[in-house]
């Protein structure tokens, strides 16, 4: 069950230029949170910004959770200014989270840019549930923006790095690297990142008959499935609905469900 709790910030780090990690003490949320779920964070005491900001849960600890975010606009700027000690109002955990198919032999996590955010928790859970740390592809624009590499390494993940400019790992896109890892029918791929990447990964995996889960983003107001603001179009109807709520029916979707053609590209990076 989600709840709304004032949580003291216990850690705040600038992990890369314009990228921050904050950890909050939130035992109640930590107890029930699943990898891939998110929380709505209140970024301002005043009414501008009015709405909370959705943030993936990066890691789940015994007495709290962490968030990893990039400063995009006013809301994330305010969040970045919050220091340890400040009480952050956290509404969560929300959404469905990743379902780990333990029958799969191999698990590959694909992170594009800040899309890495929900994957550390997932990697930990895969390791626990499947007995083996997953492969992780970390794709970033440039070396400085590679996030969480050490965390994945510590968990024992096999790490595959690509950068747009070749400053670290391979000069390639995530898809190129994924192709080389040759996922097969007994592989499960989990991807989070910019829409063009997700679309390409989805298409590749669908064509190859590989199970693929993607974590999507959308503008959100409630996070609870009530406002119907965060929808995306699905290929098939679910309980008579063609419009899926990213907050409630997702944010993690089976890639085969998404109508990528209808998916509006205006927010794409």
């Amino acid at each position: 069950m989600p709840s709304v709790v004032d949580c003291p910030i216990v850690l705040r780090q600038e992990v890369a230029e314009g990228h921050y990690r904050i950890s909050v003490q939130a035992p109640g949320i930590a107890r029930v949170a699943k990898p891939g779920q998110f929380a709505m964070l209140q970024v301002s005491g005043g009414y501008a910004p009015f709405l909370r900001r959705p943030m993936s849960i990066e890691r789940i600890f015994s007495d709290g959770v962490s968030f990893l975010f990039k400063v995009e606009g006013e809301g994330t700027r305010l969040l970045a200014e919050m220091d340890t000690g400040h009480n952050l109002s956290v509404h969560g955990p929300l959404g469905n989270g990743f379902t780990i198919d333990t029958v799969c032999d191999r698990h590959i996590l694909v992170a594009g840019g800040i899309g890495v955010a929900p994957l550390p928790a997932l990697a930990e859970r895969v390791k626990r549930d499947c007995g083996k740390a997953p492969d992780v592809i970390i794709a970033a624009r440039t070396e400085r923006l590679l996030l969480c590499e050490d965390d994945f390494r510590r968990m024992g993940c096999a790490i595959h790095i690509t950068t747009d400019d070749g400053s670290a790992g391979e000069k390639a896109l995530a898809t190129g690297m994924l192709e080389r890892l040759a996922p097969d029918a007994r592989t499960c791929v989990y991807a989070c990142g910019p829409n063009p990447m997700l679309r390409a990964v989805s298409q590749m995996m669908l064509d190859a008959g590989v199970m693929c889960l993607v974590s999507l983003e959308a503008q959100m107001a409630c996070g609870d499935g009530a406002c119907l603001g965060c929808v995306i179009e699905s290929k098939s109807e679910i309980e008579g609905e063609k419009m899926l709520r990213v907050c409630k029916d997702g944010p993690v979707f089976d890639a085969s469900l998404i109508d990528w053609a209808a998916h509006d590209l205006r927010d794409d990076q």
Partner: protein
Amino acid sequence: MSVSLEINLGGLHMKNPVTVASGTFGYGQEYDAYFDVAQLGAVTTKSLTLKPRAGNKPPRLVETPAGMLNAIGLQNVGLEAYLEHKLPFLRQKDVPIIANIYGHGPDEYAELARLLEEKGGADAIEANLSCPNVHDAKSSRGTVLVAQDPELVCAYTKTIRSATSLPLYVKLTPNVATIVEPALAAQEGGADAVSLINTLIGMAIDPETRRPRLANIVGGLSGPCIRPVAVKMVWDAARALDIPVIGMGGICSTEDAVQFFLAGASAVALGSMSFRQPDAAIRVVNGLADYLEGHELSGIAALVGGMAQ
């Protein structure tokens, strides 16, 4: 001193004068995790249509200073699925249901009202004559919202009125020169109350992509930013009407709600604030009890229209 928050809203008994605004609270169950919705004076549903509606294409939301624009486009499960899948949760709670309805033309509204009464799907009807995200009423002045044309308001209200004996509330738009005309028209048509205000029509453009932020281009503005407009319209309408006003528009706190009562509202609805604070409505219920007690008032009626001048 124990205060009573009870009211009778045009024939509907409510244990307190606080409901939620249509479209901001789903069908109630969405907020079950945060508080017992039976503590509300009433639950108001998302607008229901006869058939399910897919609504507008995304993006449907954009934040604006102290508020937001939405262009959901009345996505809803339709009457049948409401009765089958959404109603049971609400009925298992001891809370009155205000079913908000939207139809193409007066007959569809009437049909919805009739069926809702027949199937026990509502304790009161709120007719949304003012959704800014769909446009299908025609008048001599071009395409307008029904609620922008007092004659249409009166005619629609009469037709719905004749189809149901449930309390009937008519929801109006602030996009008018004066709210008094459509409010009087609703009263004349037989409404038991008017709901003020729906969202203000607005839009936002992305300066980089040069595209509208909403796929629907225009949307409805809600949140604290519109509160001063809403209070003014409630004040105007309440002085002109004999029937009660349900006040809404930017209510975030008990103090905000009190403003609406003082301006003349008999009940209030929390809308967008539930997005920011899921238990906002119940906080206002509790806050009102404290306010009445602190000010030694025996009931809400003592506040209604009580602005000092």
